[in-house]
């Protein structure tokens, strides 16, 4: 990039981060990261989910404190103790879904927290509204600043956040995946504004999964992988293929591979499944004994498809066939009756009943069996759950202890046990090993393999590429609500999956 960015190379960097590490509950998510941000550049942070780029951004913005490391602003060391301090230092983080006060007006949202005035000092409504209008004009957006924030589109809410950054004259504006919820036209507007801010000498950090956008907008990129910084390059130095290689370049770990199983008849078949705004024209099938992997980036619509099949949020059009018969699934009850089971992604929210016992959790999906006449028969509850606990090797002190006391891996085993009691034909697993220790993971993979061997059809949603590659017979890839690729196990590779997963992959073909 020529112009301001090239000029500024000789200057003191705006931000100079050295040796930044961060641990959450003993888990290292960021390791010894050095990074300079120049005055007047747009700098992309790239990496897979969990690579550490968002954590780094949040450390700059004072949301998290680094475990070790220092940050210098214009050559002077600073303590970014919290977001308010960050704001005073001229650093603003714009979240993907902006944090705002929905009941307050746009103008109030702009000024809140900026004033040093006392509690009982009067609110200058007229000046506040005037200033807010001026900022909106400056950005060239048409937003009524007197209306409550609640009614604004996400794009407009982002604009208000940008306006807030300008109001406090921020020198560094960090945008965390700002384009994901935007329409192409809104993205163009955002980019126009970002370029203008750069020309004013402000620095922008842009976090995105979309390589095309990064290429269109950014001067330099820094790539993160597994909590490490892999490198910083000017965007022109790298092809898209280079970037992808740098993002996923970890060695393939030793995974137990799925045992060969006998592939039987089609158990689950979906055709043209569509839920506008979430996913479109999804068609695929899963056979008995088969594990079909569903890969893609977070937000690609994979979970939405799973929820639609299970009747949590049904699709608007399209057909689902179970064992060759057309199925009407309006709610999870219908799905369970048809032999479907769903282990959801968000265990704490949608998976477990935290305060209930392990037994009660395991038998939760088979009320008719433990309470045939409406009264729970403890002996049946005990027998069913102890059998399940044994076969899945759930480690616990007592079957009657609250499930919330178990480790994540053992909670997940209990949830799997719950669904096995319904003797499902089709099992949908959404990120089943997220937040689970390596050791338990391997055990989990064995169980999943056994389930397939016993003639069940399994749809496995996972963002962990090695996991997908190790377990799946076939791999489907989704991007922005559509199926973009399908590979048999033998032909799949991390690179291929990643290329299909990154949105607007058209340009990637040429680069590769």
């Amino acid at each position: 990039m020529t112009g301001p960015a090239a000029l500024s190379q000789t200057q003191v960097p705006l931000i100079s981060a050295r040796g930044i590490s961060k641990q959450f509950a003993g888990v290292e998510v960021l390791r010894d990261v050095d990074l300079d941000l120049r005055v007047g550049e747009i700098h992309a942070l790239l990496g897979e989910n969990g690579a550490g780029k968002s954590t780094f951004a949040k450390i700059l913005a004072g949301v998290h404190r680094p475990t070790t490391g220092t940050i210098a602003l214009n050559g002077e060391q600073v303590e970014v103790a919290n977001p308010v301090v960050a704001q005073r230092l001229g650093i603003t983080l714009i979240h993907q879904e902006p944090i705002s006060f929905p009941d307050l007006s746009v103008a109030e949202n702009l000024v809140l927290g900026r004033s040093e005035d006392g509690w009982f000092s009067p609110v200058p409504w007229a000046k506040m509204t005037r200033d807010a209008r001026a900022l909106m004009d400056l950005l060239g957006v048409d937003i009524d600043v007197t209306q409550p924030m609640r009614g604004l589109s996400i794009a407009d809410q982002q604009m208000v956040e940008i306006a807030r950054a300008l109001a406090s004259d921020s020198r560094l504006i960090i945008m965390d995946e700002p384009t994901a919820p935007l329409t192409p036209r809104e993205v163009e507007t955002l980019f126009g504004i970002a370029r203008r801010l750069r020309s004013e000498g402000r620095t922008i950090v842009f976090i995105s999964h979309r390589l095309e956008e990064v290429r269109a907008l950014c001067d330099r990129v820094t790539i993160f992988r597994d909590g490490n910084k892999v490198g910083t390059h000017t965007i022109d130095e790298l092809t898209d293929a280079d970037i992808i290689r740098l993002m996923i370049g970890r060695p393939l770990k030793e995974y137990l591979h799925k045992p060969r199983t006998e592939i039987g008849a089609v158990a689950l078949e979906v055709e043209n499944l569509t839920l506008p705004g979430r996913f479109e024209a999804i068609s695929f099938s899963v056979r008995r004994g088969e594990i079909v992997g569903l890969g893609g980036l977070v937000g690609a619509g994979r979970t939405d498809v799973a929820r639609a099949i299970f009747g949590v949020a049904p699709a608007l059009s399209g057909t689902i066939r179970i064992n060759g018969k057309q199925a009407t699934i309006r709610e999870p009850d219908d799905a369970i009756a048809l032999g479907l089971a769903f282990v959801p992604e968000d265990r704490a929210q949608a998976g477990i009943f935290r305060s209930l016992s392990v037994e009660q959790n395991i038998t939760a999906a088979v009320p008719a069996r433990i309470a045939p006449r409406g009264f729970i028969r403890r002996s049946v509850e005990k027998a069913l759950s102890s059998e399940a606990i044994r076969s899945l090797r759930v480690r616990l002190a007592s079957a009657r202890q609250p499930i919330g006391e178990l480790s994540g891996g053992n909670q997940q085993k209990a949830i799997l046990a719950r669904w096995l009691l319904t003797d499902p034909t089709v099992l949908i697993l959404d990120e089943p090993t997220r937040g689970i220790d390596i050791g338990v993971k391997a055990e989990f993979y064995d169980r999943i393999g056994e389930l397939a061997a016993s003639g069940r059809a399994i749809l496995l949603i996972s963002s962990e590429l090695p996991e997908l590659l190790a377990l799946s017979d076939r791999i489907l890839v989704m991007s922005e609500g559509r199926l973009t690729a399908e590979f048999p196990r033998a032909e799949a590779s991390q690179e291929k999956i990643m290329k299909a997963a990154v949105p607007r992959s058209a340009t990637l073909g040429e680069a590769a």
Partner: protein
Amino acid sequence: MSALRSLLLRREAGILVMIMLFCLAVGLYKPQFLTGNNLRVILLLTPLIMIAAMGQMLVLVARHVDLSMGSILGLSAMVTGMMFRDMPQIPWMLGFAVAIGTGALLGLINGALVTLFRLPAIIVTLGTLNLYRGLTFIISNARQVDRQYIPTELKAMSQTSPIFGVPSIIFIAFGVAILAYYFTMHTRVGRQVFALGSNPVAAPLRGIKANQVTLLVFTISGALAGLAGILYASRWGFVNPSNTGAGFEFQVIAAVVIGGVSINGGVGSVPGVVLGVLLLGCVSAALPLLGIPGAAQNAIYGTVILIALLIDRTVRQQGVLGLRRLPA
């Protein structure tokens, strides 16, 4: 037209229409309901609720709740009444400072329990509802402060005033409402109360001192309940450990919620709350007039509150007379 339209689309318009329809309906059946004398009856029913409602509004807007208001009213009134009885020589105006101070202290305790121990306000104030009521019995030996001990000047405030003979406590109530309006709309901390209730997670990220703001709203709520306490002594001329303020919190919360304050925080306006209080006053005044037996009045009262909430919800979604659904 668009100014009128936006006026009609405001929440307050819905409550105003409800008040008018209600009064008209009752007036058709009992014409004396629409007389000036009855207006005086209605207005006299409302000052205590109005004052306390301003405090409750702040607490609800901050996404908390104060269930202990009735007991704060009772304890403050009792402390003040006993002072009048046991120290008859002290100036009667000092009673206001004592009542408001007692109420503020009790409110501060509520706020401290909520912020220090991160306890839900509904639990804390349910506890202090009983605690403060119990203290009222203990300090008073379960004895009422009788009429002869309440200063005449204080009692007179509920009878008359130099201004058109309208009882002073009505002016006090509206004065509190005006102060509350200024506080909520024109002070920085007032807006912070709304911000806190609108998004408690984001508030500290924007430098709002959530604990201090929470302490403040509970203290104000308590102080206003204390003010309502001394005005209770003025209005009824006695303080009774079991009756004074009993069930008061529910009337207050009903008025505030009818007045458009969201129990989810962040939303509420003083004009709305004033109208909510007046609507409740109209209902209370109408029930005896319509000859509804005392035994049934509570049930009718509760039903009317529920109907008002249902109408309000419809109005909020569709505007008065379905205006929101019509093209602009």
